[in-house]
């Protein structure tokens, strides 16, 4: 695969190293001369100096034949522009963009840039997952693929508790993928049954969340549980 990465900061350079190691053809574009000078010896012809939000620079990097474009600069407006140029001008088959400031996520969404990664949001998810008394954490959302992975506590009064997993009837569009018990993940076949206090990891279509929460935590308000698990940021930057 041929991959064009824009931005050779910590994220960009490590992505490039991994992809190169996996045998892919990679070009990374970096506009800061000092950063370019620092890395050119290591990356050689895989590193290009220039402003990756300029159409001619992307063209020179070979974006027209790229299988994947990765926009991971430190500026969200630049990552948006790179993604849009890749799509509008070069019909890139796949584009992945980094969201630096979680407040800008809605802009990526409204402009249809659907494969985004936000480190701040992902970190918050994992922190929520580590909190002792969490009920519900949306671990991963793949927007374009229309699927999400959530973690949910099994409540004392859940009609699904103390039942064999094989016999469970889950809401439509939900797949129980794993059971977390005493900090260990068990596949459904290993866990055999689920008991109160377990956490289930489910794969689901967005929209089946409400029914799923109700099934596992029947005594809780679904809205309150969802709000607790929502990835929200407050205040300024």
């Amino acid at each position: 695969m041929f991959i064009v990465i824009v931005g050779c900061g910590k994220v960009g350079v490590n992505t490039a190293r991994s992809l190169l190691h996996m045998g892919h053809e990679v070009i990374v574009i970096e506009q800061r001369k000092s950063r370019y000078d620092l890395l050119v010896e290591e990356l050689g012809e895989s590193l290009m100096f220039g402003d990756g939000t300029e159409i001619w620079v992307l063209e020179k990097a070979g974006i027209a034949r790229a299988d994947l474009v990765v926009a991971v600069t430190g500026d969200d407006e630049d990552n948006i522009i790179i993604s849009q140029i890749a799509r509008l001008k070069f019909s890139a088959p796949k584009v992945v963009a980094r969201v630096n400031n979680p407040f800008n996520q809605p802009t990526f969404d409204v402009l249809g840039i659907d494969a985004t990664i936000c480190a701040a949001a992902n970190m918050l998810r994992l922190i929520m997952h580590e909190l002792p008394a969490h009920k519900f954490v949306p671990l991963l959302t793949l927007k374009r693929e229309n699927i999400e992975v959530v973690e949910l506590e099994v409540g004392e009064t859940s009609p699904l508790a103390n039942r064999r997993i094989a016999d469970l009837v889950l809401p439509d569009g939900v797949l129980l993928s794993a059971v977390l018990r005493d900090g260990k993940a068990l596949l459904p076949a290993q866990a055999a049954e689920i008991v109160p206090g377990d956490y289930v990891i489910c794969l689901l279509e967005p929209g089946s969340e409400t029914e799923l929460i109700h099934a596992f935590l029947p005594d809780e308000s679904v809205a309150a549980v969802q709000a607790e698990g929502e990835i929200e940021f407050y205040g300024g930057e």
Partner: protein
Amino acid sequence: MYIVIAGCGRVGSSLARQLLGEGHEVCVIDESPEALSLLGDDFAGRFVIGQAIDWETLHEARVGEADAYVTATDGDNTNIVSAQIAREHFGVRCSVARVFDPLRADLFEQTGIRTVCPTKDAQELLHEAVGSCLL
């Protein structure tokens, strides 16, 4: 008419004063409070401090009620993205971005915003001026 302008430099501030003079209601956005001084002491419009791609700033500037939105910050990418937010999220049909790079100015017209490219305009005017000198 209500017009919001993001970017209070030479162009943004002059445009704001011109539109006010024509009887429009004007709001100017800039990330630096000092930019207000460019508008003059008698400026009768609103001034909002914040970034052009920050939704809260755009809310505060009441972009949703604007008849027209103009971006003239010093960043092409900021101008393009901000103008698209005004159009796609706030529903402003007339959203115009100042874009110095002619290639991006052309391409992003596809997204429904209008772009104005001073580089192209200057080139044409200079070409004309040279032409008339040579006559």
